[in-house]
């Protein structure tokens, strides 16, 4: 019997429940689909290329799942509240007719259960479909081939989804039962009436609050643009940033709080416009609505801001890596050797007392021949095929570049540092470098003949420094290179080792600055000095780079396989048997490209996921609010129609209101995001020119599809509701 009533109710209140059902179904769909990520990664062939990626993504996604579940729960409680508000009266009526509270509560439980089950079934079906499609999407993001595609179902994802839905169901139920248990019958019956009383705010006060909100936002913008992000974690920086954040949040809330009053006053100022057609109805309805939802509009604006910022930043980072990886991989294979510096040698030797091993460390007196030293490594150890790692067996052309630390063995200060150069050209330190080693430790140093050897190897023209010339190489992003370019361009004279030096180039040779394969710039500044000057400075060795192309008879696959084979790493010793250096990173071009693809895939995937979910949640909340608003205003629309307003005109008024509702938070979110992105770009530009251009396209598309889709659905449903309301005969 109760079951029958509940089922009847769901069908009768279909329109209200439809929104709830839609939102819940969408949530289940996205939830299930994204939780199948580890299976997708397998199917898309990502794990063959990068075995850790599936687990990594799976781990990150399950973390996000918690976040998503919270968002989803919030949404459901919201959608449910909307239904409850509209049905309080009905539940009151049941009690007047003699049903016990327990029975009413059971009816409600059953109703929620029906809808949740329907959403689960629909959502899982859509989620199954979406997850199959997403395999192709995943493959394209990670640039892999789908090895063997087959239909799949993830029990794990299914269980997580059901678990989350059950939790949300319980939370919603507790909310609902409290409504029934707490409310007196008389209140329930009067619920319809009470809603009609509209709190009206003083429009002048509202307008003033709106202006104050705008002012606060403006102040926060200026502060952020001025101070940048506190990437270094300095307490003052963090405090300033916190103040800025609070200011912008408060400003946003104030602005939305005062929005309706401001709009009303502004439009009333133009008499001809206000007293024309349905304009005043539109404004008043908007004002009445904004008063009750200003807080959630502010929250939505902030969420949209977060979504836009994270998606754009993520996609742009991925883009940056794509752009820099080509310049960053000039040869088939690179290997790097790290020399122990004077200070580290002293420290490591003094610590020897505690150490088990009896290695003695020493400062290198001259560069190590990397090709020869590499032969001490053993490939495929403990197998019959064990043999020395002899790069000569695969090498075609190769070059070794030896770079020095710019702080002399017996000195405390670098002969040239980024800080010095900034001072010389009167520029601030680039964002993000204020407290880094780059600033204090100084540039690396290589001598002219080494650099010319490198240039000839790369097929470029050698340079001529003469007695007193210098130049600077760097493959970092614009923020650092702007400083170097200005130093070179202005012909700044440097005083090094008692010699006055002038630049021989007028800008950084960015394409002749890369010494090792990497997805982003690694050379943050290397000064090239005349040979005799370098020799006289008594600088300790810092790095040796080996750059190598495979021989003609060696294919890329063979070469890659040779350098990727398992092997031991031996210490690099001098003649006295002391350790002078350790092996650093090595990378083939292929591996670098692959890790760029994986990295891009990971970042894009997360960015899209987060952005999609957040935008979806915001749009769903707006839709629920708008539809409930139209339902409440149904009587008003009927009156308008009876007064002789064409339905089209009423629909226009509704469209105007909804456009403002959907557009305002978006505009505010975009404005916030643009300011934040400006600061973020400065920071990220350090690692290579971060460009927003290419990625904005995809970001925009996601937004337009999700947000715009919700907007259209909202408007079309509203128009239907207006039609219905105006058709209904006046109940006399």
């Amino acid at each position, binding site marked *: 019997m109760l079951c029958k009533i509940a089922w009847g109710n769901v069908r009768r209140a279909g329109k209200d429940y439809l929104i709830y059902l839609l939102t819940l179904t969408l949530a289940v769909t996205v939830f299930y689909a994204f939780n199948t990520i580890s299976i997708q990664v397998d199917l898309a062939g990502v794990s063959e290329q990068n075995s850790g990626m599936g687990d990594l993504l799976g781990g990150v996604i399950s973390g996000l799942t918690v976040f998503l579940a919270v968002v989803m729960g919030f949404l459901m409680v919201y959608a449910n509240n909307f239904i409850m508000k509209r049905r309080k009266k009905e539940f009151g009526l049941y009690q007047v007719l003699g049903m016990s509270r327990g029975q009413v509560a059971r009816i409600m439980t059953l109703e929620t259960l029906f809808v949740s089950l329907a959403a689960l079934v629909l959502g899982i079906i859509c989620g199954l479909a979406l997850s199959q499609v997403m395999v192709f999407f995943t493959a394209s993001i990670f640039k892999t081939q789908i090895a063997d595609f087959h239909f799949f179902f993830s029990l794990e994802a299914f269980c997580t989804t059901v678990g989350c839905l059950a939790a949300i169901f319980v939370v919603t139920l507790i909310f609902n039962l409290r409504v029934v248990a707490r409310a007196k019958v008389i209140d329930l019956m009067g619920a319809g009436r009470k809603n*009609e*009383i*509209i709190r*009206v705010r003083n429009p002048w006060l509202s307008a003033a609050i709106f202006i104050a909100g705008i002012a606060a936002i403006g102040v926060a913008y200026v502060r952020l643009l001025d101070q940048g992000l506190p990437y270094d974690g300095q307490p003052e920086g963090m405090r300033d940033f916190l103040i800025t954040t609070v200011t912008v949040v408060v400003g946003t809330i104030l602005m939305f709080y005062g929005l309706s009053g401001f709009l009303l006053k502004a439009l009333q100022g133009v*008499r*001809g416009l*206000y*007293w*024309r*057609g*349905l*304009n*005043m*109805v539109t404004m*008043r*309805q908007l*004002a*009445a609505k904004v008063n009750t939802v200003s807080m959630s509009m502010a929250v939505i604006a902030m969420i949209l801001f977060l979504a836009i910022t994270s998606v754009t930043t993520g996609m742009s980072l991925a883009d940056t890596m794509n752009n820099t990886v080509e310049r960053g991989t000039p040869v088939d294979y690179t290997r790097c050797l790290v020399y122990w510096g004077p200070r580290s040698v002293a420290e490591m030797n003094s610590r020897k007392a505690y150490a088990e091993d009896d290695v003695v460390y020493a400062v290198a007196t001259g560069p190590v021949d990397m090709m020869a030293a590499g032969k001490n490594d053993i490939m495929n150890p403990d197998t019959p095929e064990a043999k020395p790692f002899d790069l000569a067996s695969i090498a075609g052309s190769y070059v070794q570049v030896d770079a020095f630390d710019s702080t002399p063995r017996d000195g405390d200060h670098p002969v040239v540092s980024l800080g010095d150069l900034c001072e010389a050209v009167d520029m601030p330190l680039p964002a993000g470098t204020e407290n880094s080693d780059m600033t204090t430790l100084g540039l690396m140093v290589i001598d002219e003949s080494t650099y010319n050897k490198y240039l000839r190897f790369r097929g470029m023209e050698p340079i001529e420094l003469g007695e007193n010339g210098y130049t600077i190489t760097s493959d970092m992003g614009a923020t650092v290179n702007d400083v170097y370019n200005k130093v070179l361009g202005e012909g700044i004279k440097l005083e090094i080792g008692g010699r006055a030096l002038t630049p021989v180039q007028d800008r950084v040779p960015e394409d002749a600055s890369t010494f090792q394969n990497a997805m982003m710039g690694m050379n943050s500044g290397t000064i090239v000095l005349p040979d005799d000057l370098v020799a006289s400075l008594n600088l300790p060795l810092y790095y040796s780079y080996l750059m190598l192309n495979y021989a003609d008879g060696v294919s890329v696959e063979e070469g890659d396989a040779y350098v990727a084979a398992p092997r031991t790493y031996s210490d690099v010793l001098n003649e006295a048997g002391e350790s002078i250096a350790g092996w650093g990173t090595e990378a083939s071009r292929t591996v670098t490209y692959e890790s760029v693809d994986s990295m891009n895939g990971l970042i894009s995937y997360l960015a899209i996921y987060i952005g999609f979910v957040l935008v979806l949640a915001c749009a769903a909340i707006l839709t629920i609010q708008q539809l409930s608003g139209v339902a409440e*205003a149904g*009587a*008003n629309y009927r*009156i*308008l*129609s*009876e*007064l*002789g*307003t*064409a*339905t089209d*005109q009423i629909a226009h008024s509704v469209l105007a209101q909804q456009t403002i509702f959907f557009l305002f938070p978006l505009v505010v979110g975009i404005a916030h995001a643009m300011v934040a992105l400006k600061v973020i770009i400065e920071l990220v530009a350090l690692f290579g020119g971060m460009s927003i251009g290419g990625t904005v396209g995809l970001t925009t598309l996601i937004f337009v599809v999700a947000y715009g889709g919700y907007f259209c659905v909202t408007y079309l449903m509203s128009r239907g509701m207006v039609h219905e309301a105006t058709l209904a*005969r*006046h109940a*006399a």
Partner: protein
Amino acid sequence: MKTAGANGAPVLEVRHIEKVYGTRNNATHALRDVSFTVEEGDFIGIMGASGSGKSTLLNCISTIDAVTSGTVLVHGTDVTRLKAKKLARFRREQLGFIFQDSNLLDTLTVRENIALPLTISRVPAHDVLIRVEEVARRLGIAETLEKYPYQLSGGQQQRVAAARALVTDPAIIMADEPTGALDSKNARLLLESLETMNERYRATVLMVTHDSFAASYTHRVLFIRDGRIFTELRRGDAPRQAFFERIMEVVAMMGGDGSDAL
């Protein structure tokens, strides 16, 4: 028979209208062959028991509801054949409505509520404000113009609704039980307003009521029973008290299910 023309045509001519609700096997015949004519400046009452078809008749005339058959001519134009756009315009320009519940927009102030029919018709803002002020003064609600409907008493709300109906200078004012939700003092105030509108401003008024006292303010009363015009009373030059007694007699004569509802 007079030919229907723009000049000389009666304000309203109802010819043989029928209204059937529901499906063929479950039909309610709400109106059966109703015909009557209203001249310019008439004040007509429509009386009948609950469910006799009064509201249906009013809704059919005002095109809020569609007739099943028959015609309704307003100034000679058949409004049952108008298309949606023209219909909205007809309602806007020719009719004024007052309902039992005042049907004001709760989000608008009194001034805006009264102005609504004018702004919908795109009357210039300057004229809108002048006309609203004037009609509000006539109905004694000038002080409430800046208030919201929920801040007014039921009687005031009903007068605001009347002001909204009058502000466009409609050909016919339609009132469906306008005093139904009012106490006797407020009911009298509203009826006097309608009387003033009719006598001083020559407004044509069509008022549905089941209250004999309210009906006694009119010039002519149509009695409806089971969807048919049962009989009709004309006041002529009789004073209101005498007319009231004659109405009471008819109500008593209709008897049975009629009297208990009246």
